[in-house]
């Protein structure tokens, strides 16, 4: 049964040290507020899964919260590199992390296999690609009908998935729209799912019947956090803060400046601060 909780309670109830966790979002709807709450609660030894680990994983890796990262694009989207993740991978600072690297097709198929309850995903991929030689989780199977050799990767099954979405209704059903990314698969592949939403509405009676709605019984907890995906965006609510992504490149380039930024903007802040961060990005309705 889904619970409406404060973000602090939702994170504390569902995330634990050593968990395999996905904070998913494909440029759009990145669950930044949930990740910052996880930072404030100080979890350790996490295995972080995400197709496009961007600022939030750069922050968690830079704080030494991760023992392993599973990903397919470890960049600052549209800007360049992730400098805290680089420091960990290149220099072991602040700790060494294990790396499991895939392509987008590999990760997307693996999430889908997780949602489908399959042990692995089969697809046409990694042909001639160097990743197959450095990632032991990339294997191949032969089609029993045609003899074609196809790529196989294990299904992704997170202990917990966090996503951000537009809205929930009072029963706890959740609407995701716009660039929906891998969110539905990441929720259905996980043992538990926590969703932050912009708002709660009375009901979904007027929605188009084919929209992406996650039924309440697929979700463990919902927290209302307006602006909760900043500096990413929420389609229909506020735009992407591109300037913040550009600025992050400078903040993350320096270990001390990074720590100062985390102290001010995460440790000494709360989920309530996100609404103010998107005020200048809200479109005229």
């Amino acid at each position, binding site marked *: 049964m889904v619970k409406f909780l404060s973000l602090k309670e939702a994170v504390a109830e569902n995330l634990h040290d050593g968990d395999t966790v996905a904070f998913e979002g494909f440029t759009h709807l990145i669950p930044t507020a949930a990740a910052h709450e996880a930072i404030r609660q100080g979890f350790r030894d996490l295995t972080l899964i995400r197709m496009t680990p961007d600022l939030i994983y750069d922050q968690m890796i830079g704080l030494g919260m991760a023992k392993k990262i599973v990903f397919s694009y470890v*960049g600052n989207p549209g800007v360049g590199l992730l400098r805290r993740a680089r420091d960990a991978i*290149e220099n072991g600072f602040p700790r060494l992390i294990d790396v499991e690297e895939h*392509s987008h097709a590999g990760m997307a198929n693996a999430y889908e296999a997780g949602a489908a309850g399959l042990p692995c995903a089969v697809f*046409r991929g990694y042909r001639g690609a160097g990743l197959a030689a450095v990632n032991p989780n990339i294997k191949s199977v032969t089609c029993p009908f045609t003899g074609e050799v196809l790529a196989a990767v294990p299904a992704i099954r997170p202990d917990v998935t966090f996503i951000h979405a537009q809205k929930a209704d009072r029963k706890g059903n959740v609407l995701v729209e716009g*660039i929906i990314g891998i969110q539905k698969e990441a929720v259905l592949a996980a043992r538990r799912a926590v969703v932050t939403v912009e708002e709660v509405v009375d009901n979904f009676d007027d929605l188009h019947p084919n929209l992406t709605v996650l039924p309440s019984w697929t979700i463990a907890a919902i927290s209302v956090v307006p602006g909760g995906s900043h500096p990413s965006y929420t389609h229909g609510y506020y735009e992407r803060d591109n300037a*913040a992504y550009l600025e992050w490149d400078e903040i993350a380039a320096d270990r001390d400046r990074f720590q100062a930024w985390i102290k001010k903007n995460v440790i000494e802040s709360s989920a309530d601060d996100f609404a103010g961060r998107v005020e200048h990005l809200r479109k005229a309705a």
Partner: protein
Amino acid sequence: MSDADDPGFTPNEMMTIAASRALKSDDVCFVGIGAPSAACNVARLTHAPDITLIYESGTIGTAPDVLPLSIGDGELCETAVTTVAVPEMFRYWLQGGRISIGFLGAAQLDKFGNINTTVIGDYAHPKTRLPGGGGAPEIATSSRQVYITMAQSKRGMVEKIDFFTSFGHGEGSDHRERLGIDTAGPTLLITDLAIWKPDPVTKEFTVVSLHPGVTREQVQETCGWTVKFAEALDETPAPTELELKTLRDLQARTKAAHAGIAKGKA
């Protein structure tokens, strides 16, 4: 450079415009971010108005007014014919064989069109950890053809890449066929100095056209392998006024749109 020598366009503008000319209205193009994105949208705004542009965030048939900073900007979704989930994008649309052109950039490129965007140095102990492949490993093998665009430099165009992120023609010749890959792979390389095409037999990229004012020496000096030139070497037509205006207007709109101020940040 005196005014008399000023061609009226930059090498990067020439690169983007030359790349845009390679695209047709009936192409279905999987667009990489950066230089490919600019070229694809100039094509759409000039000679190829009906081109289908697809970004890996799931946006199909998108027509952005400004260039997206990321592959998932809201503008892409708002102007698209439809937006699908990421697994559907890679399974049905790319793997399903619906993409005619995969348009990629490169950090490191070799003469057979193999691309590295993963690491500089050893994979386990990299000197520089780059973002990695994202969608590119499968774009490179499932699109019917691959176009590549990048500015020339000795660091970027190298004899041997450090990591095979995206497979081009491998060691050349019939390497793709030997791996069972039935798509054409890289068929066109557009740099800031020249247009290159693979040799029909060896698959080594060969210069077929020099941009206006560019010499063979300049192409060689900015390339890490010994460059082969076609016997009949063309000169790339200079950008037209319409092409230049379209590109510059697009870039000006993009710059204005991305110049927002980050509030609530340290």
